[in-house]
Structures are given as structure tokens and as C-alpha cells.
């Protein structure tokens, strides 16, 4: 009564043929360049033995240009599910060895089924992009197929984490699927991401350019801000995915993977006192503060190369996963500009969607002045940050380390933006504007008549600083919950977070707000 040998062998034959994908030669060529094949990428992504492939036997649906006679194993994409760190996830990997990983209708259907499954199961989805683009032979069908992927990316957005790895070419319309996901990792070599390539740009505009200039990982990580992480190779990209997932919940109805110990250490950290420079004009690296606050100094910085005046990333405090948002006084004096606003606002939105509490570290002199900023729409962009914070209902803790001036102070989640606690260090300066600027307005007449204008201005500024930007003034008006020594901060945040795990904040029902885009 056993299964007939020939039937069983038939399956094995088909499996072997499908697993061969584009053939040994193409796989060897990739290996020679230090790159992995699509299946190898998924095998390294998932814990050993947990990958369950879906659609191994898929065949393409191209019926023109002689394509009907060709076999495209799996239609150029490998899809399925598996486990990462004990938690399930879905993934797809485009297979460049099969028809250049081009996207046809069946290829797209496999991706769409993967996304649909992730949505239903409430599990993250990871996509490896490595494709020559639309399969031209399938015409408008391929175009529609992209649309179906984009549509699903949007349905999944805010429900399950979506992570894209750009591990090969990703051009034209294809670039928009990763762009709709939460995090993009791109390999430094062998990958490109662009809408119109150098040839098209030259043909249409006459501008001579290079792929490095418009589509490289370096450009996207530092100038455009499109990608969040650069990976040195495929293995590194997978390692970043693993690390990222270690901070993220499987879906928006779950808590992030907190590591709550029954006992909470509330010890002081004197090192934090040491980090604050004497002179308020001397910059310090806000990442050093983050690393002191985060458990084991474990901090995953996101978008490290873009808008470096704002630092964002994940860590844990007292076991609770948090998103850090910090001004970086070492770059552009920590002032908020267009890119910094966009970077922080999107991160705040992500954290709120996925129940990650926010810890905001403030040392901000203001919004960056400049013609470029005003004409570039700093009002529109800065408003995103205000919008993101005000609409976030996750626990929000703000630490005012030093400067907190003007609108930028509010944009860094002041109490008025719904912060649950505001901690100020004794070094905090909180005011509507800097002392020098303020005395020029408040004492305009007196200064005009002063014998030594500069000396009098400095004197008045010192008085103003003492009287009107002191944290005790804000604390007296209850804008600040408490003034703490830097060394007391970590324990205070850890304890506050523990007390906020049950936070519930309801808002009026609506389709969605209208964030200034």
C-alpha cells in the first residue's frame, strides 16, 4: 500500500529541477563574487531546518515572444515562511539566476501570497530585492503585478513589520515596493536603487552622472535617506535583519520583545555625570548618553549616515524595548533641519505603530536658520515631527539634557505634545529663545543707549539665562516633572517605563489624520 516508487521519484525529479534554478554556473558566478543565491539568502535568514517553501513548482505565465517554450523555475522568486529567533516570519527572495529575477505575473503572485500570509498570520515579512525589473514580455500584466505588490505593502504597513534588503538591482517601479516598507538594508556592492538610471537621465536632461551618484548604497544612506542600513555583504544584511527583528514585535497587536526581569536595578550611573561638558558650548556625542542608558550599551542606530544632527534607534532600558530620538550637538549644533525632521518623524510613527515606547533626549538650539531651509519647506517638514509626536500614544519620556529652545523644544516632545514625563538635568536651558537673542529684543532701547553695548548685552544675557531659562522655572510651572542628576536618569526612566506598560490613551475615531507630507 506504499506510495508507488515512480510517483515518488517524479516528485523528487521535479524538486531537483526547480531547486537548480538558473543552474550551477550562475550560482558559481555569484559565489565567486561573494554573493548568495536566493535560496541561500533565505536559508541564512531562517533558523536551520525551519524554512518552508511555498510555490516551488510555480511556472511563469508568459505566452509571447517564444517565452512559452522556456522554463523559469519558481518564476524567478523563492517564497515561504520560517522561524527567526524562535518567532515565525515570512520572506521572499528574488532569484536573479532565473530570467534576471524579472517580475512577471506569477512571480508577483508569489510575493503577494507571501505578503497576504504575513498579514493574516501577523508576522514580519522580509524581502530580498534582486531583479532586472518588469518582465517586458508580459507587458502591462507585469506592470499591474507591481501595483498589486505596492497595494499589499500599504495594507501591511503598520500591521506587521516589513523589512527590505536591496541585494542586487532594484530599478524603476520596483524601487517603490521597498520604499513602502519600514526598513531598507542595502548591500554596499552589487546593489543599485534608482528610478531613472544614468542613461535615461543623460538622454532626457543631458546631465552626465554615474550610478554611484544616483543609485548607490552610500548615496541612499547619506544624501537621500532612502535606506536605513548599509550591509557589507549578504551575510551582514541578514545579521542586520536579525538584530532589527530582536527589537520588533511580530505585529501591531503585540508588545515588542521586552526582556523584563522580576528585579529592576535602580542603581545610579555616575558615568552619565561625566559625559556632560562644563561649557554649554562644548558639544558631546549624544550616542554616548544613549549607550549609558541602554541595557548593556546595546543600541541599534537607524539611518546613522543620514541627517546626523538627529540620532534615532532601538535599545532596551530595564528590559523594555524603546525607540531613542536624540539631538546630536556634534553635528549642525543639533539644530533640527528638514532631513532631521523627516528622519525622526518617520521613526516616531514606526514606534507608535508597533508599541515601542519613545525616549527623547533633548539638546536642541532650535530649527536650523537658512534660506535653503525656509524655501525647502522646513515648516512643512518640521510639522511632521510635531504631528508624529502629538499623535503617538505609546509611552513618551523626554529628557532635557541641555538646550531646549523655542519651537524645536516642542518638536522634541515637550509635555504639551503628550509626553508622560519630562526629566530635566540641572544643566537644562529651557526658553522661548537663546539668551543673547532675547536680550536684544527685550532690552533693545537700553542696549542702544549703553556705553559698552557688548558688555551690557553679555551681562543681561547672563541674567536672562539664570532667571528665564533655568529648569527650575519650568519645573515650577510643572512643564518639567522633575530635575534629576544625569546619574539618576537611567533608573528613573526604567522605573517610569515599568509604570507605563498599561498606558491606554484613546483618541477620537477618524480614518486618519492629515500629516503634512
Amino acid at each position, binding site marked *: 500500500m506504499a506510495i508507488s516508487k515512480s510517483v515518488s521519484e517524479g516528485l523528487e525529479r521535479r524538486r531537483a529541477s526547480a531547486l537548480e534554478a538558473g543552474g550551477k554556473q550562475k550560482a558559481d558566478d555569484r559565489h565567486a563574487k561573494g554573493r548568495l543565491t536566493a535560496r541561500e539568502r533565505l536559508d541564512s535568514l531562517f533558523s536551520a531546518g525551519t524554512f518552508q517553501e511555498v510555490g516551488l513548482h510555480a511556472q511563469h505565465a508568459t505566452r509571447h515572444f517564444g517565452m512559452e517554450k522556456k522554463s523559469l523555475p519558481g518564476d524567478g522568486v523563492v517564497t515561504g515562511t520560517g522561524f527567526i529567533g524562535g518567532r515565525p516570519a515570512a520572506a521572499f527572495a528574488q532569484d536573479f539566476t532565473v530570467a534576471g529575477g524579472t517580475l512577471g505575473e506569477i512571480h508577483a503572485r508569489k510575493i503577494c501570497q507571501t505578503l497576504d500570509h504575513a498579514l493574516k498570520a501577523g508576522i514580519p515579512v522580509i524581502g530580498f530585492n534582486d531583479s532586472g525589473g518588469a518582465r517586458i514580455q508580459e507587458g502591462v500584466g507585469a506592470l499591474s503585478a507591481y501595483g498589486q505588490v505596492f497595494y499589499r505593502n500599504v495594507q501591511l504597513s503598520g500591521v506587521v513589520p516589513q523589512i527590505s534588503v536591496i541585494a542586487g538591482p532594484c530599478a524603476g517601479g520596483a524601487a517603490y515596493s521597498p520604499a513602502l516598507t519600514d526598513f531598507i538594508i542595502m548591500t554596499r556592492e552589487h546593489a543599485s536603487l534608482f528610478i531613472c538610471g544614468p542613461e535615461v537621465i543623460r538622454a532626457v536632461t*543631458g*546631465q*552626465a*552622472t554615474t550610478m554611484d*551618484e544616483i543609485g548607490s548604497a*552610500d*548615496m541612499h544612506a*547619506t*544624501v537621500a535617506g532612502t535606506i536605513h542600513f548599509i550591509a557589507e555583504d549578504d551575510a551582514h544584511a541578514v545579521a542586520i535583519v536579525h538584530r532589527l527583528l530582536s527589537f520588533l514585535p511580530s505585529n501591531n497587536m503585540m508588545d515588542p520583545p521586552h526582556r523584563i526581569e522580576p528585579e529592576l536595578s535602580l542603581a545610579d550611573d555616575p558615568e552619565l555625570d561625566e559625559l556632560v561638558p562644563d561649557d*554649554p*558650548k*562644548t*558639544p558631546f556625542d549624544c550616542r554616548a548618553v544613549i549607550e549609558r542608558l541602554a541595557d548593556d550599551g546595546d543600541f541599534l542606530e537607524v539611518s546613522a549616515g543620514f541627517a546626523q544632527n538627529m540620532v534615532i534607534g532601538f535599545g532596551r532600558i530595564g528590559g523594555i524595548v524603546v525607540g531613542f530620538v536624540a539631538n546630536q*550637538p*556634534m*553635528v*549642525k*549644533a*543639533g*539644530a533640527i*533641519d*528638514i*532631513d532631521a525632521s523627516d528622519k525622526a518623524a518617520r521613526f516616531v510613527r514606526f514606534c507608535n505603530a508597533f508599541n515601542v515606547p519613545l525616549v527623547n533626549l533633548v539638546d536642541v*538650539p*532650535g530649527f*536650523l*536658520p*537658512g*534660506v*535653503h*531651509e525656509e*524655501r*525647502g*519647506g522646513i515648516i512643512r517638514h518640521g510639522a511632521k515631527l510635531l504631528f508624529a509626536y502629538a499623535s503617538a500614544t505609546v509611552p513618551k519620556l523626554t529628557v532635557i539634557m541641555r*538646550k531646549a*529652545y523655542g519651537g524645536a523644544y516642542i518638536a522634541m516632545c515637550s509635555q504639551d505634545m503628550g509626553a508622560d514625563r519630562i526629566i530635566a538635568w540641572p544643566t537644562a536651558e529651557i526658553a522661548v529663545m*537663546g539668551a*543673547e537673542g532675547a536680550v536684544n529684543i527685550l532690552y533693545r532701547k537700553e542696549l542702544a543707549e549703553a556705553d559698552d553695548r557688548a558688555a551690557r548685552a553679555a551681562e543681561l544675557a547672563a541674567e536672562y539665562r539664570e532667571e528665564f531659562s533655568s529648569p527650575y522655572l519650568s519645573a515650577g510651572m510643572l512643564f518639567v516633572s522633575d530635575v534629576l542628576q544625569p546619574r539618576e536618569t537611567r533608573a528613573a526612566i526604567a522605573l517610569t517605563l515599568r509604570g507605563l506598560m498599561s498606558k491606554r490613551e484613546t483618541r477620537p475615531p477618524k480614518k486618519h489624520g492629515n500629516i503634512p507630507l
Partner: protein
Amino acid sequence: MKRLRITVEGIAYDVTVEELDAAPASSPAAPKQASPTAAAVTAPAPAPAAVPRAAAPAQAPAATAEPGAVPSPLAGTVVQVEVSVGQSVAAGDSLLVLEAMKMNTTISAPQNGTVTAISVAPGATVTEGQALLTLS
């Protein structure tokens, strides 16, 4: 090749203009290779006055035309110059200190090199993108 400085709305752009007699007017000069974060400004030959406002507003303007020029990351006042002409520096070495937005910003060497020119003195106000000094 002709080098021109063009000021658009208070921002100085250094552009290179190439005379292409036989070329059609729509063929612009190759953009100057600026730092990767700087927006390239191309001037269509042969009418350098008609510089398009191509500079992306969010990006630093391409004012650092000289190779090796170290641009100011933001507008401010020079507090201190920590190197002298002829001095060799390693990437990451402090070159000068700017004060801007109530904060000192240290300008570090982007690469190893020798200081060939210092374009600013303490007390000078500088604009974003302005060349502070030049490294060979």
C-alpha cells in the same frame, strides 16, 4: 573652460562653464564634481547667466568647487583655527572650531592631507558650504 561664481539669492555657486561652439545649446557642461552631499549645479553653455535653480533645497549648495576644499557644514562664526598652512593632518584631526546655534562645532579633516590654504580667520562669519580651508 571658464570658472564663474554666481550668486543666487545670497548663495554663491562656483560653476565651470565650457564653451561648446559646435554643440547644440541644450547640451550642458559636465557638472563639476563636488562633494557627494553637494547638489551639482550645471550651467547650460553658452549662457552662464541662466543657471537653473537646480540646487536641491535640503542639500548643501555646491560652493566648494576646489578639490580638497573643506566646506562649512552650517553658517556660523570661526572661533579658532587649529592648523596652519603646510601642516599635515590625518583624517579626523580637528581643523577649526565654528560657533553656530549656541554651540561649538569642530570641523575635522575628511581625509589625510596637507593644509594648502586657510580661507578664514577667527571672528569671520561663514555661510553654509563656504570653503574654510583646503587640503592637498
